[in-house]
């Protein structure tokens, strides 16, 4: 979307004491109104609504939870501000593309935005994110799992407000694990689950498609083996030191190849994304998969719709992400959403206040239950309602404590894009892949090669 709403002096929107003008439409009905309408309304209608500033929150698509939170916080603000939401594209890359283009043009219609962690350094380094005052930073990080704080931090400063934290767990069919004699109470390794699945003629699901999910998987493998994709100088494109040739990365490549070329991998492994993994796991060949918590809600939804036997989700078990090294804890992937406050927002203070409201423990619990997205505050996992809807909540919490973010760098799209190009298809990955990827990424960052 290239439309840039007309800009106007900030004071027109910020002051509360202006005489009331004709009332603009207050809320947008329905998601169909879309981004253009919502942002235009916010941009032109700010002076209306009796002087109540409207904050526009750019959200990633969900099951309606964020729109509900916006309404709740509007009520809680008691007339000091109102929040309207605008929906971003489905995939994280598309969300980033739209936000970056708008922010690069100093779009004042964005106040709050739902950001995927890997893009936070890029936004912060470009000066797109408003500073978060220390007292606010202290309040919004209280009781938040470590991984989520790390994901929202750049240059030792908190630059976004942690909202929800996602992680992958190892989903297994209880019947398959039992038949294979695997004790799922104990940590398992990739070798063990591949062997068990091969013996039972079942699938091991992972994300082998050429997409962001491939970087997520590789990063988890490398971090589990004790390495990192970027070792040094993440902010300097000419001097960035990549850890793709380290022993840990070589070991990670070995595991990736083992999974992708085993009989337990789906025939379409090189195009398998999260949804395809979940579909395979729901089928009668389902054995194991690494995937986000949404797969459980998805299976329950399929049962309700009548397309899946009720016995299938009952057979679902969840354990912490598989290990690479049997003696070292795994480092599961870290995802989720943090709230960035736009540096071009005319109402930064109110936006910060709204972000605090949205990320309150109560609202995170609601969002967890309603949309299936795990909270970033640890206390939410003890909420009885959460425990009832998500029997796997304790495993998710344990995984979040172990989770490691993807490389934090303003040049993330080059790093991830380079990895996706060289590490795909995963079945062709070998001990030389890391070096090839490191060479490509360095050349791209120096400006010597295309991506």
């Amino acid at each position, binding site marked *: 979307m290239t439309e840039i709403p007309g800009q106007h002096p900030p004071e027109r929107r910020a002051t509360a004491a202006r005489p009331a003008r004709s009332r603009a439409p207050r809320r947008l009905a329905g998601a169909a109104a879309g981004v253009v309408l919502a942002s235009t309304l916010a941009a032109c209608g700010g002076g209306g609504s009796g002087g109540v500033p409207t904050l526009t929150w750019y959200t990633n698509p969900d099951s309606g939870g964020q729109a509900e939170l916006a309404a709740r916080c509007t009520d809680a603000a008691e007339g000091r501000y109102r929040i309207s939401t605008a929906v971003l594209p489905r995939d994280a*890359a598309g969300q980033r*593309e739209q936000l*970056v*283009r708008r922010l*690069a043009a100093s779009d004042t219609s964005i106040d709050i935005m739902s950001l995927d962690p890997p893009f936070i350094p*890029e936004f912060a*380094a*470009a000066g*797109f994110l408003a500073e978060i005052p220390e007292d606010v930073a202290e309040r919004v990080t209280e009781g938040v799992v470590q991984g989520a704080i790390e994901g929202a931090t750049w240059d030792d400063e908190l630059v976004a407000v942690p909202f929800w934290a996602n992680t992958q767990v190892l989903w297994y069919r209880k019947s398959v694990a039992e038949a294979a004699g695997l004790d799922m109470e104990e940590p398992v390794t990739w070798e063990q689950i591949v062997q068990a699945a091969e013996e039972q003629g079942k699938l091991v699901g992972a994300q082998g*498609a*050429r*997409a962001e999910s491939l970087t997520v998987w590789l990063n988890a493998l490398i971090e589990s083996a004790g390495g990192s994709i970027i070792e040094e100088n993440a902010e300097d494109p000419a001097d960035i030191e990549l850890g793709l040739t380290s022993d840990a990365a070589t070991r990670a490549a070995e595991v990736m190849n083992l999974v992708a070329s085993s009989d337990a991998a*789906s*025939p*379409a492994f*090189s*195009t398998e994304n999260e949804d*395809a993994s979940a*579909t*395979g796991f729901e089928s009668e060949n389902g054995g194991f998969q690494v995937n986000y918590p949404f797969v459980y809600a998805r299976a329950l939804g399929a049962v309700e719709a009548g397309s899946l036997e009720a016995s299938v989700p009952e057979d679902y078990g969840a354990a912490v992400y598989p290990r690479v090294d049997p003696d070292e804890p795994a480092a599961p992937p870290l995802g989720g959403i943090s709230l960035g406050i736009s540096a071009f927002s005319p109402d930064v203070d109110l936006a910060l206040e709204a972000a605090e409201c949205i990320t309150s423990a109560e609202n995170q619990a609601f969002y967890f239950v309603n949309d299936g997205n795990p909270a970033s505050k640890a206390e939410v996992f003890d909420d009885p309602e959460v425990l009832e809807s998500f029997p796997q909540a304790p495993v998710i919490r344990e995984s979040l404590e172990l989770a490691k973010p993807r490389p934090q760098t*303003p040049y993330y*799209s*080059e790093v991830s*894009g380079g990895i996706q190009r060289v590490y*795909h*298809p995963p079945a062709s990955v070998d001990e030389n892949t890391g070096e090839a990827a490191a060479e490509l990424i360095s050349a791209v960052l120096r*400006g*010597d*090669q*295309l*991506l």
Partner: protein
Amino acid sequence: MTQTTLPPVEKTQPVSAPHGKISDRSKSERKLGWLLAGPAFLVMLGVTAYPILQATYESLFSYRLTDPANREFVGLNNYLVILSDTLWWQALGVTLLITVITVAVELVLGFGLALVMSKALKSIRPVVRAAILIPYAVITVVSAFAWQFAFDINTGFVNSWFAWIPGVSADTDWFGETGTSLLVICLAEIWKTTPFISLLLLAGLAQVPEVLQEAAKVDGATWWQRMTKVTLPNMKAAIMVALLFRTLDAFRVFDSIFVMTGGANNTESVSFLAYRQTISRLEIGLGSAVSVLLFLSVVLIAALFIKGFKVDLASARGER
């Protein structure tokens, strides 16, 4: 037997028109022409010339959208980087391959459909035309998704319907390899744009003078002789215009690749390369350079067609 076309007819000049001088009347006509075409001309300048010039200017810089402070003039370096990168040549190869395959198949299919449309019984002609045109009315992204779902290993029906073809089984992953991915991409493109080419050819068919056909029939020419000696030579201009338009269109292929493979397995086209640099990486300079090269390729193709094959755009519109 030689090819039979009508001799070109000179535009009838008014006998009284003085030579070499422009009359007042044609002066004012010329003025009116400019007044009528002027606004459209200005709009075209604004929406095409301006972006092209801006892209050309920006292609001379190393410029990242998120880092405007470090914008730096690098001359032709971006072009050097692109032209010395195998990725560019590979993308160009893929683009040319898709263009040649789709345009060739579409020309044959489209000609067949045009014949069907022109010969169909009068009563069913509107229905036939509408049916043939439907794919062209479908948005490319939607058509790409439809084809992707059809061939997908989980949701598709192709694997189970066509399992009798050697090499196709329930486990065939169409988007897992270069060849099969390109096959599906080409199929989707052909399905989608054949109606366009057949519509242009239908217009060409209508231009073939009925007198010539009848004369050939009286002389005892067979159907095939009439086709190759009368119909096709008279349609040459229409065929070349259809080919030119479709080639330029096919060369910019993007949507199907974006939806179906995301550029995996070496299926990236030149447009996709421009998208990746400009939109994903935000490298405006490098991306603009790719776009300019894409533009030059398109200009080159158009020039080849018009000069090389002597395509006369005016005659295709029946102006002469």
